[in-house]
C-alpha cells in the first residue's frame, strides 16, 4: 500500500533569482510541513532574505515555483496574491513599523485597511494582541520612534499575528537586540507559534535563536541548501559548511572574505 506524503505547507521548487551579478538563489529546493518551525541559517548575502521575499511574492522569481498549499504564488493575479497574503504574517528585521501611525494603528493595520474592521473594534483587538506580546495598553498610543528596539520587535510580532496567520515569517528576529531581550523575543515566537498552531519560517544567523525556535534547520549557501536536519542535529553533524558556520572558523568551504 503506497504511503501518502503530506503536501508541504510551503515549498520552494528549483527557485532561481539573479539581480546584477551572480545568482542569489540557484535552484533552491526546500519545503516545510504544516505546523513545523523551519529556520534557515547562513552567512550574509547568501540569499536568505530573498528566499523569504520570493515566498511572499515581494520579489518575482526568475525560474521555479513557490508553492503555498500546492498553489504557485507566482501564478496568482493581484487579488489572488492578496488572498494568499491574508494567510501569512511577517516580522521584518527592523520591525518595518509605519512611522506615521501609532502602535495600535500599526498592529491593527490589516484589520482596518484590508478587512474593513471598524476602528473602535480594531483598537480593542490590537490592545488584546499587544498583551499577548507582553505590551500593556499604555503603549497603544505611542509612536514607533518612542519605542526601544525590543518593543518595536514585539509590536511587529503583534502586527504579524493579529490575523491568526497560517504561516509566520521571521526575518532576523533577534538582530540588534541584547541577549536578554533576544531570549524574550525567541520565547515569544515559540509561544505564539505553538498557540496559533501555525507553520513558521525564520531566517537568522543567530544560532542561539535558531536552536530555540527551530524544529528543523536548513543551511543556505550560494543560493542552495547545503544541509538540512533537526535542530538537535545542528551540533552533531559533520557537514563542513555547518561545522565552519557553527564553530565560527575562517577556514573551510565558506569564503570568509566575501
Amino acid at each position, binding site marked *: 500500500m503506497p504511503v501518502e506524503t503530506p503536501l508541504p505547507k510551503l515549498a520552494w521548487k528549483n527557485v532561481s533569482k539573479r539581480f546584477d551579478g551572480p545568482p542569489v538563489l540557484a535552484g533552491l529546493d526546500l519545503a516545510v510541513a504544516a505546523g513545523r518551525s523551519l529556520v534557515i541559517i547562513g552567512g550574509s548575502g547568501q540569499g536568505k532574505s530573498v528566499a523569504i521575499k520570493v515566498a511572499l511574492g*515581494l520579489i518575482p522569481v526568475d525560474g521555479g515555483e513557490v508553492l503555498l498549499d500546492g498553489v504557485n504564488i507566482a501564478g496568482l493575479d493581484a487579488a489572488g496574491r492578496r488572498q494568499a497574503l491574508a494567510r501569512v504574517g511577517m516580522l521584518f528585521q527592523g520591525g*518595518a513599523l509605519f512611522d506615521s501611525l501609532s502602535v495600535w494603528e500599526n498592529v491593527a493595520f490589516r484589520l482596518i485597511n484590508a478587512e474593513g474592521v471598524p476602528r473602535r473594534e480594531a483598537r480593542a483587538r490590537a490592545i488584546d494582541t499587544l498583551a499577548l506580546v507582553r505590551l500593556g495598553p499604555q503603549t497603544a498610543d505611542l509612536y514607533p520612534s518612542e519605542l526601544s528596539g525590543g518593543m518595536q520587535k514585539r509590536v511587529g510580532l503583534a502586527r504579524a499575528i493579529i490575523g491568526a496567520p497560517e504561516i509566520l515569517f521571521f526575518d532576523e528576529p533577534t538582530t540588534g537586540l541584547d541577549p536578554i531581550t533576544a531570549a524574550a523575543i525567541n520565547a515569544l515566537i515559540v509561544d505564539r507559534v505553538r498557540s496559533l498552531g501555525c507553520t513558521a519560517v525564520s531566517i537568522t544567523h543567530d544560532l542561539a535563536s535558531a536552536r530555540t525556535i527551530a524544529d528543523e534547520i536548513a543551511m543556505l549557501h550560494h543560493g542552495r541548501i547545503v544541509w538540512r536536519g533537526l535542530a538537535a542535529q545542528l551540533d552533531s553533524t559533520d557537514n563542513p559548511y555547518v561545522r565552519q558556520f557553527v564553530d565560527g572558523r575562517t577556514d573551510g568551504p565558506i569564503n570568509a572574505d566575501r
Partner: protein
Amino acid sequence: MTGSDVPESPPPRLLAPVAALGRATLAGAGSIGQVALFALAALRAALTPRWFGGQIGRQLWQVGFLSLPVVGMTIWFTGAALALNVWTGGSRFNAEQAMPQIVAIGITRELGPVLAALMLAGRVAAAMASEIGAMRATEQIDAMTTLSTDPMRYLIAPRLLAGVLSMPLLTLVANCFGIAGGLVVAVQVLDIPPPTYIQNTLDYLQDWDVESGLVKAAVFGFIVALMGCYHGMNARGGARGVGRAATQAVVSSAILILAADYLLTSLFSRM
C-alpha cells in the same frame, strides 16, 4: 567560416561615442517607459475603488493647505514686481496704462499656475520622494504589501488625487494674491486709485484666462505628485538613495512642468 565563428571584438574607438549615445538613448527610453507604466498604474489606482478617504484628506491638507503660505507669498511678490516692470517698460511706448490688464492676464494664464507648481515641486515633490523613499528603505512598503494592502492605493493614489485637486485651488488663491500684489504697488507706488485698477482688471480679464490656468494647474499637480511618488518608490541605497530621489523628484518635476506649460499654452493658443 560562418558568421557565428567570427570572434566578438570591441567596437573601434571611433565608434565609442556612437555606442555611448546608443546606451544613453536606450536608458532614456527605458526610464520614460517605466514612468509611463507607473503613471498608468497610479491612475488606475486613483480612479477606481477602493479609496482610502483618511489618506486622501491627510494629503489634501499636506499638499494643499500647508502650501498656501509659500505659494501666496511667492505670487504676491511676483505680481508686485511684474506691475513695476510693466509700468517701467510700458512707459517707453505709452503702454503703462495697460499695466493692470497685463498683470492680471500674466498672473492667471502663466505665472500663477507655473510658479505655484514650481513652489509645490520644491515643497511637496521632495517631501513625497523622501517619505516614500524612506518607507521603501525601511521595508515599510513591503510590510504594507504583506498586510494585504496595495501601496499604490494606500500611498500613491491619495497623493496623486491631492496634487490634481489641490493645485487648481492653490492657483485660484495664488491668482488673487498676485493681482493683489500688483494692486498694492499700483496704489502705494504709482498712485493709481484702487477702483481704477480693479475696474481695468475686471474689464479685460476673460473667463478663459482663469480657466486655462486652472487646467494647467491640474496637469502640473499631477506631474508634481507623480514625480514625487515615482522617485520615492524607486529609491535605492539607503539615506543617500533617499536624498537622490528627492533631488530627482524636484528637478524632473520642474522640467516637466515647464515643458507641459509650453505644450498646453501652444494648444490653448490654437483654441
